[in-house]
């Protein structure tokens, strides 16, 4: 009996191996109809299922939209070859991200990689790409350390290191807000922790008193105990790094607690998204946030992108979509300039990038310990009458900052 079991075990394992080998031919993805033309493959790894799927889907849509535009303009044909996007789902899990990266590099022989939403998965993809010597252009993953390793194959254009999201904010703080005390709350994720760390560091340099500093686990129903505790310290300004829905709950519950500050500033992520306004309702009014992008930013094409996306997919995109859209343009630009499609050739072309996108000018530079990292342009925005307005830097402003904001009870 033991024997039959073991033999069937072997058989099963072999069958399993054969199946894998079978997919090895790469036949699972039906060849495109225009396959006669040779292609340059670009692997894109995004979370299409799992907890981050919402953003993965938005980024995939945006890239496809950009691709169609480029194609219409004839820019997807580079050096006689057609750019082909190969999307892989990382299931919001890093095992799958690793598998996807391995598959794209080794099986599909992609010329370069892109994608990467969560910091964790971006880390794994970057590690794989670096050890294989394949260029990887990050879309969203913003952990500081990804571009701090000195990894030559990793490029980050449309995303800032998490601790640099606050660039424009400091200017605003120095010139207008001049707070004596700040409170920091942040989700205990990679992005939240890095952002808070960056903010804390600058506060200390500037001698701003941090009166409250706490991390929380995302997905809570009730933030009031933490907020009540924070209210007691009476900070001039609150700086909060939160996911979309935590952000709206925090705003709402601050209102419920009648917790007034001179200004509430979100650290990108949740506080700029349409879902934030929808859920927080009037509690979103006057909430400010740093951000990398908003639809009415001055860069050419930004508003068009927003409009087109909304028409096509029936939903408002946020800066994640813009990142993906701009990334597609960077890819097409770099591949268009590349002398050959070897990894080194593409790496060189990427390095020489100097492109204007809807995210602003993109260049890959080495600075402050970062490698191949674009110097981000950041903005401070504020919700005013249910619309997101740029309030800083002043030259890009679409509205004037309301500061200090009126107390909850003084609002209509």
């Amino acid at each position: 009996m033991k024997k039959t079991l073991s033999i069937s075990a072997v058989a099963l394992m072999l069958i399993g191996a054969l199946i894998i080998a079978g997919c090895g031919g790469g036949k699972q993805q039906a060849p495109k109809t225009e396959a006669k033309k040779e292609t340059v493959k670009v692997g894109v790894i995004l979370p299409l299922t799992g907890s981050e799927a919402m953003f993965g889907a938005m980024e995939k849509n945006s890239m496809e939209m950009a691709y169609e535009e480029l194609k219409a303009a004839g820019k997807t044909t580079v050096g006689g070859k057609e750019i082909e996007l190969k999307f892989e789902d990382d299931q919001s899990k890093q095992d799958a991200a690793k598998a996807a990266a391995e598959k794209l590099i080794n099986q599909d022989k992609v010329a370069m990689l892109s994608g990467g939403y969560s910091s964790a998965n971006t880390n794994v993809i970057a590690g794989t790409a670096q050890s294989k010597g394949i260029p990887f252009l990050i879309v969203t993953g913003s952990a500081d350390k990804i571009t701090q390793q000195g990894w030559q194959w990793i490029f980050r254009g449309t995303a800032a290191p998490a601790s640099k999201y606050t660039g424009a904010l400091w200017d605003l703080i120095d010139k207008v807000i001049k707070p004596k005390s700040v409170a920091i709350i942040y989700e205990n994720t990679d992005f939240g922790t890095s952002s808070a760390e960056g903010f804390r560091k600058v506060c200390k340099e500037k001698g701003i008193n941090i009166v409250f500093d706490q991390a929380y686990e995302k997905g809570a129903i009730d933030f009031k105990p933490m907020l009540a505790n924070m209210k007691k310290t009476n900070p001039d300004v609150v700086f909060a790094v939160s996911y979309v829905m935590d952000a709206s709950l925090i705003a709402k519950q601050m209102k419920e607690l009648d917790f007034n500050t001179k200004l509430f500033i979100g650290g990108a992520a949740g506080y700029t998204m349409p879902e934030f306004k929808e859920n927080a309702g009037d509690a979103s009014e006057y909430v400010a946030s740093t951000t990398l992008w908003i639809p009415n930013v001055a860069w050419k094409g930004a508003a068009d992108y927003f409009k087109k996306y909304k028409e096509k997919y029936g939903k408002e995109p946020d800066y994640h979509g813009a990142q993906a859209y701009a990334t597609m343009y960077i890819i097409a630009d770099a591949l268009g300039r590349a002398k050959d499609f070897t990894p080194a050739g593409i790496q060189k072309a990427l390095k020489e990038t100097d492109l204007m996108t809807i995210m602003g000018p993109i260049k890959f530079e080495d600075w402050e310990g970062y490698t191949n990292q674009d110097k981000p342009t950041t903005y401070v925005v504020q919700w005013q009458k249910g619309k997101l307005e740029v309030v800083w830097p002043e030259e890009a402003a679409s509205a004037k900052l309301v500061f200090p904001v009126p107390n909850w009870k003084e609002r209509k």
Partner: protein
Amino acid sequence: MSLFGQTVICGILLGGMYALIAIGMTLIMGVMKIINLAHGALVMVGMYITYVCYKSWGLDPYIGMLIAMPALFLIGCLIQRYMINRLVEVDSILPENQVLLTVGIMLVLTELARLIFKSDYRSVTTGYSSSTFFVGDMSISIPMTVGFFIAMAFTYLLHLFLTRTDLGRSIRATAQDRNAAIYMGVNAPRVTVITFGIGSALAAAGGSLLLPLFYLWPDIGHLFTAKAFIITILGGMGSTMGAIFGGLTLGIAESLGATYISMGYKDVVGLVIFLLVLLFLPGGFKSLTKR
């Protein structure tokens, strides 16, 4: 002092919400003795039904609840009848494969929701979503208070149902000793089907009450499943009153933990209490009243 008061009030209201979700689970666990990891997913389905009612027909979540509950009752009955009850008859090495079946159900429900509704965050903003009243300088959320009292009412109704009706008594008999109940002529498979249905309907009620003040996306279930377990064990499996006490204990413990330790560690506080009760009071709070 007002900080302490505010913390406790938040805890009590939050506890009421937790309790409502947990009542369904404690009923199911009490009768079937299985760990139902799909419970949160059932809450999620209930929330989506209420959400659709709101978006399509403008029904207030409190009314949408009346549609979501029977719908979930039906879904629960089907799951129990055609899936879990099938397993009870099967001779497997580990009875825990029932748990794994609920994991499968959870995956299917979650991914179906994702296919239909995408992963987008949804929310229902009603006029009263963030309305409050103040006692001294302590703020009290109105929808949470309403939810709290509805939770209490459901618990009381369930208690009446379990003690006053024949069906309720059959459910209790099955919970106490399945074999003995069968000898006494109780149709145990049917009772478990109805129990699972009621448990699911209560999960839907909990979800609907949370909808105005929370939000919704396909993976939301995970948040609730863990809480519901903790409360079920704190209160004692199968005890509706225990679920209320368990919910309040967890709510208050989490709030105090968030205020006085750190928001990041509040879940640890809940889990530690959970472990302590498991070890030193294995019957939950229910066993205290029996002595």
